[in-house]
């Protein structure tokens, strides 16, 4: 890992100069995203040279900073790309579609290089891998892409295959990164990767040893390299989780005929879910950006508000100090103060809001790639990209969007012939729009493709035992079955996706954001996915309840009603389970005081309150002592220490300054069933 000799004198140490590296990472991220969206908006027929200039400038900045940090790969690639762009902006070479593709591919590789560096920096800063402090990045072979750029510069015809995806896969296979790469680019799902990995043969290294091509030493180094590569954290996270010991991991790595994760599963050391969780955790950590760009207007506004706050503070403390000789005055000051406080809260909240622009722009790239791959012409129509959402929501929403869009292009939109045959426009259209509606954000994906086939979905669901044969269901209910696990209605599962594959994951992800997803469809005309999300993740409406002296918050959204039942409405089953009979509907009763071992006097439901709550699997009721009132609460995480507690999704600070725990109703049901 010594890198190229000429880089050594410039190489900075990640640990000592972490600030510079973190800055570089976020800078490159911004430049790449901007360039990508600029490239996508280039119209090959009608060139806007200002756009090319902008891309040129971004790439140039990347090159400069990379050079300073001694990151030769990034520097070399951006240098070549810059040359290409320079020629294009001077009009020396025509800006063709091929160049667009080449630029996008180069940006992908720069991004991979950036991500690799990011993981390395992250690991170094957490002190996990001291050897990684060398900044030389080696995970991707940049030679093929550089060759392509050079070929293009020399004016020769591009002999490389046109599909960007195939191209990318080619060179990445050599580095054993394919799976990770594919998943990250949402080309395959995790499950697909896992299946693929199972079928995958042994590692390159072992074969090489057997062939006598290389020595064990080399392989050791390669394994070392693997540790530094993106796969390492999986094992690492598992070790940290205590799922397996360092030794077991080492053994697995030694035994690495296949991927670490898989061997771990085979050995029964861990389960597939754990591996997936680890992967997810890794991904989550990798993609959470540490910074957020804030509109200066918002900052100015906040600044003004804080200024006013200081004045209000002075006024009120003055009132207190010199006695309230003017009661009206201090009342006025107090109400002024509370208004400012509210304004500041709103303003600070709004600083967490980010527009959907970047996310949507990424989608146009995706639609471009997928439609190219599927050999279809698809137009993506975007509207409402200025709609703002909480930064955390934006980060999570991208994945489900990718999934749905990919499905829409791959399965929703029919092939050209079929479209023409059914009298549609040759070019398919997918509409992606976002707008506000009643305190929620709605994101809609609408395609004009074949639509969902009711019969097929229903039959499949019956096959899978998800629905009973003669159940009466509305069309909408049937369509929404595609969100059930394992329900794929695609005739053939292409290598991009199968409609239904992973839709359950989409739904889960959206529900994690306390959102809802719904699909409507008309056969032959197209389908519409509607995602409804709360404006912010940080605040919820809750009902404060108490059990004994403890207060809990139940999210209003999960409550369907609350009541004090009559004695005869409560029946016990086998003297153990209890149900509440509510207008003929029976709801199982969970006694919170029993579940959580809390002392309370009100143990008879007819003296206390029964809250009927709604979960995905149906309704049930929770017994609490009293309802204390409704309140908007700011959700606070309880931290890792309490992450295993079932039925509690977080904490919130109540009016008395104490912490109230927020109940997670589906968790309570689980806990009650387990008890």
């Amino acid at each position: 890992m010594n890198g190229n000799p000429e880089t050594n004198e410039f190489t900075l140490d990640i640990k000592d100069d972490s600030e510079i590296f973190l800055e570089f990472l976020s800078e490159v991220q911004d430049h790449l995203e901007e360039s990508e969206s600029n490239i996508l908006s280039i119209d090959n027929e009608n060139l806007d040279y200002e756009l090319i200039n902008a891309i040129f400038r971004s790439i140039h900045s990347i090159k400069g900073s990379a050079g300073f940090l001694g990151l030769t790969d990034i520097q070399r690639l951006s240098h070549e790309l810059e040359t290409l762009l320079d020629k294009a902006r001077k009009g020396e070479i025509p800006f063709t579609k091929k160049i667009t593709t080449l630029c996008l591919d180069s940006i992908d590789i720069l991004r991979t290089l950036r991500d690799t560096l990011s993981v390395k920096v992250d690991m170094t800063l957490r002190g996990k891998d001291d050897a990684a402090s060398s900044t030389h990045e080696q995970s991707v072979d940049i030679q093929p892409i550089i060759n392509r750029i050079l070929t293009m510069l020399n004016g020769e015809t591009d002999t490389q295959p046109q599909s960007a995806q195939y191209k990318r896969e080619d060179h990445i296979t050599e580095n054993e990164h394919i799976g990770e790469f594919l998943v990250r680019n949402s080309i395959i799902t995790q499950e697909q990767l896992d299946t693929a990995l199972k079928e995958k043969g042994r590692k390159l290294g072992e074969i090489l040893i057997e062939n006598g091509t290389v020595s064990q030493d080399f392989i050791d180094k390669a394994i070392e390299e693997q540790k530094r590569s993106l796969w390492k954290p999986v094992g690492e996270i598992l070790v940290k989780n205590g799922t397996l010991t360092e030794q077991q991991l080492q053994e697995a790595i030694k035994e690495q005929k296949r991927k670490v994760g898989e061997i771990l599963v085979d050995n029964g050391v861990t389960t597939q879910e754990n591996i997936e969780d680890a992967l997810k955790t890794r991904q989550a950590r990798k993609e959470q950006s540490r910074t957020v760009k804030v509109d200066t207007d918002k900052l100015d506004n906040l600044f003004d508000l804080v200024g006013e706050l200081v004045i209000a503070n002075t006024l009120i403390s003055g009132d207190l100090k010199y006695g309230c000789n003017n009661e009206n005055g201090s009342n006025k000051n107090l109400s002024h103060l509370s208004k400012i406080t509210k304004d500041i809260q709103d303003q600070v909240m709004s600083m967490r809001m980010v527009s959907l622009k970047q996310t949507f722009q990424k989608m146009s790239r995706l639609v471009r790639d997928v439609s190219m791959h599927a050999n279809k012409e698809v137009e993506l129509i975007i509207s409402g990209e200025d709609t703002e959402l909480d930064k955390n929501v934006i980060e999570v929403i991208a994945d489900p969007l990718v999934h749905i869009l990919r499905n829409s292009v791959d399965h929703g939109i029919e092939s050209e012939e079929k479209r023409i045959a059914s009298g549609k426009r040759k070019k398919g259209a997918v509409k992606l729009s976002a707008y506000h509606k009643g305190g929620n954000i709605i994101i809609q994906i609408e395609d004009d493709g074949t639509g969902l086939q009711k019969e097929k979905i229903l039959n499949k669901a019956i096959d899978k035992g998800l629905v009973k044969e003669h159940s009466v269901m509305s069309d909408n209910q049937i369509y929404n079955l595609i969100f059930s696990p394992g329900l794929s209605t695609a005739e053939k599962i292409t290598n991009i996706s199968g409609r239904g594959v992973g839709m359950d994951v989409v739904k889960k992800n959206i529900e994690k954001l306390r959102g809802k997803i719904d699909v409507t469809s008309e056969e032959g005309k197209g389908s519409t996915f509607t995602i409804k999300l709360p404006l912010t993740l940080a605040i919820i409406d809750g009902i404060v309840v108490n059990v004994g002296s403890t207060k809990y918050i139940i999210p209003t959204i999960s409550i369907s009603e609350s009541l004090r039942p009559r004695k005869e409405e409560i029946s016990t089953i086998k003297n153990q389970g209890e149900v509440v009979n509510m207008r003929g509907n029976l709801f199982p009763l969970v006694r919170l005081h029993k579940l959580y071992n809390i002392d309370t006097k009100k143990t008879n439901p007819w003296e206390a309150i029964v809250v009927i709550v709604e979960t995905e699997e149906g309704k049930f009721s929770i017994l609490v002592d009293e309802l204390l009132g409704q309140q908007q609460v700011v959700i606070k995480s309880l931290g890792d220490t309490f992450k295993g507690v079932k039925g509690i999704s977080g904490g919130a600070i109540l009016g008395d300054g104490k912490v109230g725990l927020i109940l997670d109703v589906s968790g309570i049901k689980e806990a009650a069933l387990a008890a």
Partner: protein
Amino acid sequence: MEAAVQKNIVDEGKFLTFILSKEEYGIEILKVREIIGVIGITPVPQTPDYLRGVINLRGKVIPIIDLRLKFSMPEVEHTQETCIIVVEVNNAPIGVVVDNVSEVLDIKNGEVEDTPQFGHGIDTSFIMGLGKAKNKIIILLDINEILSTDELEMVEQLA
């Protein structure tokens, strides 16, 4: 070998000492963020005894651990002197309930003895060493070890 390693961990410096059931313990002062009185603790269900619950520390929700219970000492009524020491473990604040805080002591390297072994059943892994100062023995705790999430993740198994 192990002893040598342990010795290296103890850096001389200032320690905050506190009393737990008549024994005197010390935590590196650099790990201590603040000392507060016992304020309304909200118990979190389905957790081990020693996890008292959570408190609101100026808008942050932090977990509270009762060291007496953690060390299997008998529980006592909280008094005026009972307080919460807020320490920082893995960049996250966490509060520990102790009987009372006594003083900040300078402990030199030479004044630290290795932890003797007490045989089976007595876990000493969280003790960095024994400090001898002012004719007292101060048990120097490795607070990271005691409060690391690995250790506390037992919650998950219990739940």
